[in-house]
């Protein structure tokens, strides 16, 4: 008995817990901090090369607005990927919801905010239903989500083309102008040399915050992590794995609908081609943000930073006049690097 090392007492534990909390927080800050430092270094170099075109309020605002759609898709994709799934259908769902919403807005006798709200509701209904359809074979037959969402990608794109007769559907109402191209706090911020905050950026910020809270502070969010970490343990703990997984795909479809609305509003039309490749962009954002495709880990905020990094990279390369083929090469290399770093980190942690 005397030989056994002393057990920690509760009082010590409380102190330890506080310390561990601090340590974990430091770890988090270190990770996010590391990304920010890397960003700043890149920014400094780039700014030097771009003769000051990069670090202007107008350009940075522009970058934020450009990443809106990808960041919103990445929110839903994060939930899906944490459960060790994948959603390949979101790009097509942007198109399908965009086309349906454009047609709907032209068909109903509403105007102004009620029209926007009703249109969004229709888009959400379409997107969430598609997400539900994605999920059913996954939870009922244990089919790989790669397959079900790939099938949905093809079907949704085909349907969008069919409905739109292969052409963008123009939006007749001007009710969406503010949503797509408007600015918030244009007046006050103008004094600081800022063009104001683009409305889509507000949407993105609200969604990122809301879903980050959903993921980290609620029972649902905890279950998402538990299922991705160990689905069997989650099931035996009484969690309804099927319900949680289904909701995750519904959320992803809903995010695609919001992105669809913002794109439709920006271009004043619902186009059956705007979403091509978006699903891969959103997966890239999630992965660059450090979420493991193996599931169990991830964060909405990290995915936002992933989207931001990709957006900045694109912007910088545009400013430097790098041709688009080269841009793809660089982007691919960055994604690969991010995954390699993630893998090495995992190995280091598991030792």
């Amino acid at each position, binding site marked *: 008995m005397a030989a*056994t090392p002393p*057990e*920690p*007492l*509760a009082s010590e*534990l*409380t102190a*330890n*817990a506080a*310390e*561990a*909390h601090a340590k*974990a927080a430091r770890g988090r800050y270190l990770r996010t901090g590391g990304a920010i430092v890397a960003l700043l270094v890149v920014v400094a170099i780039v700014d030097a090369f771009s003769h000051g075109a990069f670090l202007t309020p107008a350009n940075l605002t522009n970058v934020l607005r450009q990443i809106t759609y990808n960041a919103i898709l990445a929110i839903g994709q994060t939930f899906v990927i944490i459960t060790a799934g994948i959603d390949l259908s979101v790009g097509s769902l942007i198109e399908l919801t965009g086309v349906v919403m454009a047609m709907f807005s032209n068909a109903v006798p509403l105007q102004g905010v009620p029209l926007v709200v009703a249109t969004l509701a229709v888009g959400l209904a379409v997107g969430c239903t598609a997400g539900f359809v994605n999920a059913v074979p996954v939870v009922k037959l244990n089919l790989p989500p790669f397959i079900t969402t790939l099938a949905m990608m093809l079907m949704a794109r085909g349907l969008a083309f069919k409905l739109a007769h292969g052409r963008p559907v123009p939006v007749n109402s001007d009710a969406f102008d503010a949503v797509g191209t408007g600015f918030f706090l244009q007046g006050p911020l103008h004094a600081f040399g800022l063009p104001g905050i683009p409305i889509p950026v507000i949407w993105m910020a609200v969604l990122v915050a809301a879903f980050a809270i959903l993921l980290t*502070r*609620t*029972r649902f969010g*905890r*279950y998402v*992590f*538990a299922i991705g*970490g*160990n689905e*069997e*343990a*989650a*099931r*035996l*703990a*009484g*969690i*309804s794995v099927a319900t949680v997984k289904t909701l995750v795909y519904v959320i992803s479809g809903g995010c695609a609908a919001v992105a669809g609305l913002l794109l439709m509003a920006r271009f004043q039309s619902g186009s059956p081609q705007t979403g091509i490749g978006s699903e891969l962009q959103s997966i890239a954002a999630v992965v660059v943000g450090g979420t493991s495709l193996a599931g*169990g*880990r991830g964060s909405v905020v990290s995915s936002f930073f992933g989207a931001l990094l990709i957006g900045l990279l694109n912007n910088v390369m545009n400013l430097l006049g790098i041709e688009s083929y080269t841009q793809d090469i660089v982007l691919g290399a960055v994604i690969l690097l991010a995954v390699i770093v993630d893998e090495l980190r995992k190995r280091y942690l*598991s030792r």
Partner: protein
Amino acid sequence: MTPAAAPLLRMNGIVKVFPGVRALDGVSFDVHNGEVHALVGENGAGKSTLMKVLAGAYRADSGTIEIDGAKVTIDGPRAAEALGIGMIYQEFNLVPDLSVVDNLLLGHEPTRRGLLDRKAALTRSSDVLAELGIALPLTLAARRLTVAQQQLVEISKALLREARLIVMDEPTAALTEREIDALFALIAKLKARGVAFVYISHRLEELPRISDRITVIRDGRTVETRATADMPQSDLVRLMVGRPLDAHFPELPAVAAGAPIVLAVKQLSSASGVPVYDVSFSVRAGEIVGLAGLVGAGRTDIVRAIAGADVPTEGEVEVAGHRVAIHSPHSAIAAGIALITEDRKAQGLVLGMSVRENTTLAHLDAYERVGFIDRRAESAITLREIEELRIRTPSAEQIVRNLSGGNQQKVVLAKWLIGDAKVYLFDEPTRGIDIGAKAEIYALMLALLARGVGIVMVSSELPEVLGMSHRVLVVREGRIRGEFARGAATPAAVMALATGVAA
């Protein structure tokens, strides 16, 4: 057995230590050409570890292996194969979608000018099979064969690789009587050609038919080797269980007279894993009922069905007198049933989550305030459990992956203790944890009894079942075969019932 000829195989003083466990503690035995040597022992006696050493899957920490009198090193499956050792595990190693002939020659495919020579493969396989009188549909995919046919493929595979010693782990477990007869006939034929067998089986009654000698292993040591003819089954069972009951079990308080029945299981059947038939028993408040039996007898499947981990096909479960419909783990938990699973890493824990997150996972609804998780309450309950269960962790925020096995097991316990269930089902609660942590888990079970819960415990350690149960139910082939009151349960009697040998 002429002493002049060196045995085909001699394993001498084999020791294998895993962290915290001495799995093999000096095992010695030998096998002669043309001999069937049976290896028997309780669950966990060390048979599988020994065979893995022979197959090159594990390296022994000390001891020697000799083939034909010459010392050899077996550092991998290839080396074992080159020495003429063929392993046939209980789970076959066939590629289900490849044809029988492709499986037979896997890794040894005949080629012609760099391309596969299918004709040569077919003739070579059919020649060997014809010589042995084995009939197999050579071009059929392996997945379409019966279990017995798959086993024949495995045996033929070993023979095609010119194996002189074939190790078979529980070869008859999944065979019908007729298939067993055919297998034994084949073994006899191969014996006549000088092929030797190491035959591992729990079915003691078949050993006189098939084996020449028997070696009993217990606690990682050779207990005795005897000619089968000189080994009556009663001796065999006695040698297998051997030791007296370990004294380190706490005193079990008697079940109060008239204590209410907290769990009643009636005619429960399940078909998910090992099929379970017609299981009925009850547990009183303050009582531990032990489920004894061999690995694969269906004990785990019984508790899984009660807990909704597998959905029972038939039967009723009553908790504290109320009938409950078990259709998912959730319904069982809601009814007050907690299952502490056997495999904590695969089923009990989310390893990448913290102690706190694992502790509250099954009862998170109780730690929720207006839709949000109340982390402070979570931390409070977790710290209480850390203290009560003496979980050695730097904090509640430690990732469970980084804890030792015993402490991980305590986190699993914490997860179910905070729910105040009425019935606790413990499946191998002390497997793979050290003796100190075991004692703590026993103490905890007593504390639970004092709360008035009922406990069902599955354990493969006979001393544990006997030492920690008020009653012992013996399970064999998915059915309860008998019941012993605490005093009446002797190791030999339980073992006899578990193996199907008339005591």
